[in-house]
């Protein structure tokens, strides 16, 4: 699996928690959660056991570790030292959820722009010109119907997609 280092915000998305929960849990457990996708797989389960079942963090961590060290689609592990209580986890579902959250974290969870939010533009045309935007292109686009604009986008996106695939194929040779 990709060993990209996740930011705090991305780790929170992967865990299905808030960044505050991540920070508090790290402080209470006296550890730093791993930030690579393959190692972060247990943080979401820890959060779920702690938040949904109200288990103490340290017990939740022990159970999460035990569960994830087993193989198979479901995992039943002793939840208490007495052995009287077993906890069953649908590992296939959990891993599916983790993969969906990881994708979201990687695709949408990048860093946010720092600083104050950008104010609404007062001179939008001047600002666009300053950004190098071709107003002629925009005016041409506005002369088209939405159907024509979207047909053009579809064709352009397909063209760019085909170019990327061709480049990837050339790179793999």
């Amino acid at each position, binding site marked *: 699996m990709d060993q990209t280092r996740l930011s705090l915000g991305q780790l929170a998305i992967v865990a299905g928690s808030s960044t505050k929960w991540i920070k508090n849990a790290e402080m209470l457990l006296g550890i730093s959660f791993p930030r690579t996708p393959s190692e972060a797989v247990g943080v979401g389960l820890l959060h779920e056991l702690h938040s949904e079942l109200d288990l103490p963090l340290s017990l939740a961590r022990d159970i999460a570790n035990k569960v994830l060290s087993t193989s198979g689609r479901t995992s039943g592990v002793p939840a208490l030292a007495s052995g009287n209580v077993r906890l069953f986890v649908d590992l296939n579902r959990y891993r599916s959820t983790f993969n969906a959250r990881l*994708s979201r974290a990687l695709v949408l969870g990048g860093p946010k722009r720092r600083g104050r939010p950008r104010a609404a533009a007062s001179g939008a045309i001047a600002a666009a010109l300053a950004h190098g*935007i071709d107003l002629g292109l925009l005016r041409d686009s506005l002369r088209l119907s939405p159907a024509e604009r979207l047909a053009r986008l579809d064709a352009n996106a397909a063209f760019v997609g085909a170019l990327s695939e061709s480049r990837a194929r050339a790179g793999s040779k």
Partner: protein
Amino acid sequence: MSFGSIVRGLIKSNVEFVVVGGVAAAAHGSTIITNDLDVCYSPTDENVKRLASRLRRWRPYPRGIEKGLPFIMDAKTFHITPILTLSTSQGPLDLLDRIEGVGDYAAVLKQSESVEAFDSHFRVLTLRALIAAKRAAGRPKDYAQLPELEALEALLAQKR
């Protein structure tokens, strides 16, 4: 890959949705090319079931992660993970239950307008709401699109 085939497929399955993001921006006149379709969907149980059923035909898989890992496409997945970033046989598709800066599906629907394209009628987020969403999202790539969207709004105001 075709945005049209995704939109037509969703309509055929009676999925309630609003197109947001770059494709909605293009419908309003943006010249920026996007390679994924962003859709805000109604989170009702029936709609999510219809959506999951349609997506299963398109071999969905979380985008950007290693191939071959477990991924279940059903209504439960939408309840656990309401924002999904998928690759499908029809192209990349992002599914969201709410839009930052606009609100939940009801708010998104309220701030949408009907367009006719891809031989279909469907709804896209208004230009004004798109600008609010891009501003609220706050990522560099969203900010980079703001000057063009705001210029489009100003040009449209000049035409009126």
